[in-house]
């Protein structure tokens, strides 16, 4: 009541819209002032250098001096560069792996957890712990566990299981990429468990009751109620997985630096090498643009499907 009275007296009958508009303008100005710090750091650190990258991707910039325009040369070179094909293949394999194996592990763990009461919190914390461990540290945890002369292989051999002995997980070109993906999965899947569990707990219990009355077993419960119930979360994490899989850098750089023999090279490490070791910043920028394009396509596809009425 008090608010309405004040409003009425503040806007005299002669010019009803004027004072209100001025208040609104003032409020908008204050609002922009509050947003200014975010916009300034964002533009200086992300947007402006990002836009510069797009420009540099059309130049022969070395990263130091002036740059001259070379048209689409960098992009046509990319198309014919076996290193680029190799890295793109690894990013694609990485994406497929992370869309399936850690997702399945996360769903499995979360579904089991959703069926227990006692110790649920404890398990949740235990699974989440690897996620808070820094990549450099989890990298060295597994470097030592997977080392051919003092790791799991030798430990198992000592108790009569010799199959993994002398396997050089990170040094064998056939195994290295899978090994790095495994190490990243170790850190990542517990995060998925926690997110999926939270999402599963939001599914209406009545649906489960009904299914049980119909005599559904756990598998059918999972397939017909849990999965549809958490679909928005599933789709969102699927989207993030695609994006992150094309940006992957840390684990590769820390564990193998793209080796041995390029067997773990990805777009992120290829770009880094071109920018900071080969002094081909223009070429590196074109790789960065390709990586950004993948993100943009993934996000637009997601938003397009959502606008088309898909419940994701």
């Amino acid at each position, binding site marked *: 009541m008090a*608010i309405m009275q004040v409003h009425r007296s503040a806007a005299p009958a002669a010019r009803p819209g004027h004072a209100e508009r001025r208040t609104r303008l003032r409020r908008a100005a204050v609002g922009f002032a509050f947003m200014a710090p975010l916009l300034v750091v*964002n533009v200086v650190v992300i947007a402006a250098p990002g836009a510069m990258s797009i420009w540099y991707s059309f130049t022969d910039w070395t990263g130091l001096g002036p740059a001259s325009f070379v048209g689409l040369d960098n992009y046509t070179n990319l198309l014919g560069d076996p290193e680029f094909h190799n890295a793109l293949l690894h990013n694609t394999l990485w994406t497929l792996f992370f869309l399936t194996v850690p997702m399945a592990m996360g769903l499995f763990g979360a579904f089991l957890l959703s069926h227990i009461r006692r110790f649920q919190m404890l398990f949740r914390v235990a699974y*989440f*712990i690897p996620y*808070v*461990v*820094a990549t450099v540290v989890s990298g060295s945890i597994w470097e030592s566990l997977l080392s051919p002369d003092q790791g799991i292989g030798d430990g198992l051999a000592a108790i009569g299981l010799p199959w993994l002995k002398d396997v050089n997980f990170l040094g064998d070109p056939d195994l290295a990429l899978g090994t790095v993906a495994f190490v990243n999965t170790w850190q990542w899947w517990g*995060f998925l468990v926690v997110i999926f569990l939270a999402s599963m707990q939001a599914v209406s219990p009545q649906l489960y009751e009904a299914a049980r009355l119909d005599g559904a077993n756990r598998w059918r419960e999972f397939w017909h109620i849990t999965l549809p119930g958490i679909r928005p979360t599933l789709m969102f994490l699927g989207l993030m997985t695609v994006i992150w899989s094309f*940006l992957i850098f840390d684990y590769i*750089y820390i564990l193998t630096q793209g080796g041995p023999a390029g067997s773990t090279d990805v777009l992120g490490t290829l770009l880094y090498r071109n920018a900071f070791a080969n002094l081909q910043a223009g070429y590196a920028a074109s790789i960065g643009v390709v990586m950004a394009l993948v993100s943009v396509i993934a996000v637009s596809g997601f938003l397009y499907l959502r606008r088309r009425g898909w419940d994701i």
Partner: protein
Amino acid sequence: MTSRPARAGALSLGRYATYGVLLLLALFAVGPMLVFGFNALKTPSELATSPLGLPAAPQWHNFADAWQEAAMGVGLANSVVVVISTALGVCVISGCAAYAMGRLRVPGSNFLIFYLLVTSALPIQLFLVPLFYLWTNLGLYDNLLGLIIIYWAVFSPFATLLIRSYMVGLPKEYEEAARLDGAGEWKVFARVVLPMVWPGFLTAALIAGLSAYNEFLLAVTFIQSTDKMPVSTAFFAFKSGYTQDYTLISAGGLIMVIPVLVAFLLLQRRFIEGYISSGMTG
């Protein structure tokens, strides 16, 4: 789940199996860290003969040696500066922006949300090289402040969306009442809104601080001198240097990770809830 007691007998075998599998998964998550902890207490020759076993005689001096050789003290001190400045800066920047978007209903808020989502999905590699060039020219390369400013930009989008989600739920009456009493926008924000949404700030600070502590790509690119390195790159330099002594590497890794584990275990609800809200919203 409420019908459980009636069928407890039939389910008990399945229940044991569930706990068994959950325990195995927990072992997979925590086991490698335990082995890492054991290795930090072994002698190098013991590590070679018994890579997975308990240490026979704990070599506590490994921690002192690693601290010395990996320069962990300097690294941790730099990281404390980086973490605190990142967390505080992100809270100020994101808190102000979230207040504008969530409470002041600034025109274009929806576009800004979209923009923040897009910039947080962009690869760091896209802006890395020009930023490196820019930072070198501004004297911010190899400078902790330079790294901190980058962290402000990189971590503020998620924090803004997080804090905003706390703000949109507030009833409007409190602010209206304060404005009627003649409070300015700043006072409304600091005295009325802030006390009600501080959990959002705490969560954002924790996640931004932890991310800054663990961050690798930007730290390894923008900090070069040993005396300015945060602990993540100081440890990386140590582990990829000439040392191949895994007992010392393990000890150094533990020195880096123990503060995080302690903070996480003390505040795990807040950490996990923050990650859940950033992992479930689209």
